[in-house]
């Protein structure tokens, strides 16, 4: 399946945030969106998810204009992982993940045995089965992020949009989340994520898109897009992209800020 934006203008009725964004995501692919604060990443995501109407252009899901689809139909195709947050009521982790099944339930139905099975499978895959009876509002931020990813999996959509899934997580949890993202793509799920850490793009992305003041300034393979001049232009600070060799063989690129102190 394919999710694409065609010359998309996005924002709110009285003020546009971005314009002329064209990009495409296929299932099984990880696309990482980089951009400074206020560049419009979250607004773009909300528009791609159909939560905000496009100001111009269109969002296509498998070639069909998303604005003609119902909420249920969109939710069966694309799931959304918001930034880990508090909840208003103390639902258990199991109940929270179960909410991912909503788009598959009839309007008047409650979850059935089949939904519980899909929920258990999603939690197993993310490795949070032991948290099932914990209260969502009482677990740590890292665990909440994993719960929200499990909820997106339970939704059984071919595409997942994640808004800064590594924000506010400790170093270990950041890497754990990135590993889950790679595993999802290996299972044929397309992932679109935003992050503030260019190294995360090196770690998990197939392709990178760069958003600056609401416009796409670069979009392509990690190797071609993630260069020092591009990153320097995007963030407005001098950076160096270096290749480091890893113990035990192989090498990986990292991005370092220059000119400190």
């Amino acid at each position, binding site marked *: 399946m394919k999710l694409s934006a065609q010359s998309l203008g996005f924002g709110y009725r009285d003020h546009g945030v971005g314009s002329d964004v064209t990009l495409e995501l296929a299932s099984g692919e990880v696309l990482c969106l980089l951009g400074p604060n206020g560049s419009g990443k979250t607004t773009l995501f909300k528009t791609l998810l159909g939560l905000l109407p496009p100001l111009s252009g269109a969002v296509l899901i498998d070639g069909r204009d998303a604005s003609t689809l119902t909420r249920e139909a969109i*939710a069966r195709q694309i799931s959304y992982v918001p930034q880990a947050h508090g*909840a208003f*009521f103390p639902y258990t982790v199991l109940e929270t993940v179960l*909410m991912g099944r*909503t788009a598959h*339930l009839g*309007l008047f139905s*409650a979850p059935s045995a089949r939904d519980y099975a899909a929920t258990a499978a999603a939690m197993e895959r993310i490795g949070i089965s032991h948290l099932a009876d914990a209260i969502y509002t009482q677990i740590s931020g890292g665990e909440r992020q994993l719960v929200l990813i499990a909820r997106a999996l339970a939704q059984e959509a071919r595409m997942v949009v994640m808004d800064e899934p590594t924000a506010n997580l400790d170093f270990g949890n950041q890497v754990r989340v990135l590993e889950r993202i790679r595993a999802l793509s290996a299972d044929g799920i397309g992932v679109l994520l935003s992050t503030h850490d260019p190294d995360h793009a090196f770690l998990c992305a197939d392709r990178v898109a760069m958003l600056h003041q609401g416009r796409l300034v670069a979009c392509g393979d990690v190797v071609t897009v993630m260069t020092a001049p591009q990153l320097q232009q995007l963030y407005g600070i001098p950076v160096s992209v270096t290749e480091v060799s890893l113990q035990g063989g192989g090498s990986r690129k990292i991005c370092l800020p220059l000119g400190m102190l």
Partner: protein
Amino acid sequence: MNTRSIVVCAAAAAALAAVIALAFATGSYPVAFADLLRVLLNWLGGAAHGLDPTVETVVLQIRGPRVIAALLVGASLAAAGAAYQNLFRNPLVSPDILGVSAGAVVGAVLGIFLSLGIVAIQSMALAGGLAAVAMVYVVARAVRGHDPLLVLVLAGVVLGSLLGAFVALMKYLADPYNQLPAITFWLLGSLASVSPRDLWIAGPLMLAGLLPLWLLRWRINVLSLDDEEARALGVATVRIRLAVIVGATLMTSAAVAIAGVIGWIGLVIPHFARLLTGPDFSRLLPVSIVLGAGFLVAVDTLARSIAHIEVPLGVLTAFIGTPLFLWQLMTARRGWQ
């Protein structure tokens, strides 16, 4: 359904049965439990009870309708409160947050002011409650670019105070010898004048209001998430929210129309129910209904038996509800944290 929910439901149902029996037995004309059973068996088509006909009149004509009214009103207010607390993602919300009570009061007070009959006054209260919420909803939908829930609450507060001014004006203009006492009495809430005919009208309306709440029970859970999150999960939030508001408003309006303004039940009862069962609405709703019904039957029994005159229900629910709520607030935060 886990073991805990089954225990909670069984305990709540047993407590409700005990409270109902007590309500039938207590009053200025006490009825022994054995006599009560005999009258009820006879009413159900069993053997003649051979008791003083006064006993039968007290049980079936006087206390029966009143107990049923207390059950219906308590259950309705608690169910509507539970739904609104989920909808507004706030455990401190009560059923009259959108101005339903204020609207019903205006309707009823206008009816009393115009010296209409009791049925007309109740109808006006019902219509007033529905109209107030409809107005709040239309105003909130017209305001764009803000959090839809915040706008709803603000519109409710603003319209509520406007209607309050209207009520104050009518109290000021009312005849102080018969209209003003009637208005005051109505504002304090009472089940003393509920007739079987009232129940035949209000009961079906309450059930009709309950229907969407029960049918949409799972969607109502998801509605307690952020608006955008709920939509991304496949919930058409605007339509579901409207259905919940219509259902809860119908239940509350019908309750206020026959019983006047009774506060605290819709706020405190769902809160306690959530402590017992957790927030899942498919368990929260039935437990709230049972607790709300039992609580109001108990309070109404107190209201007509602790003093020589009846204590107004609204006063008593506040006297009992406030300390209960504060105690709960101080001892446990689990219900909403």
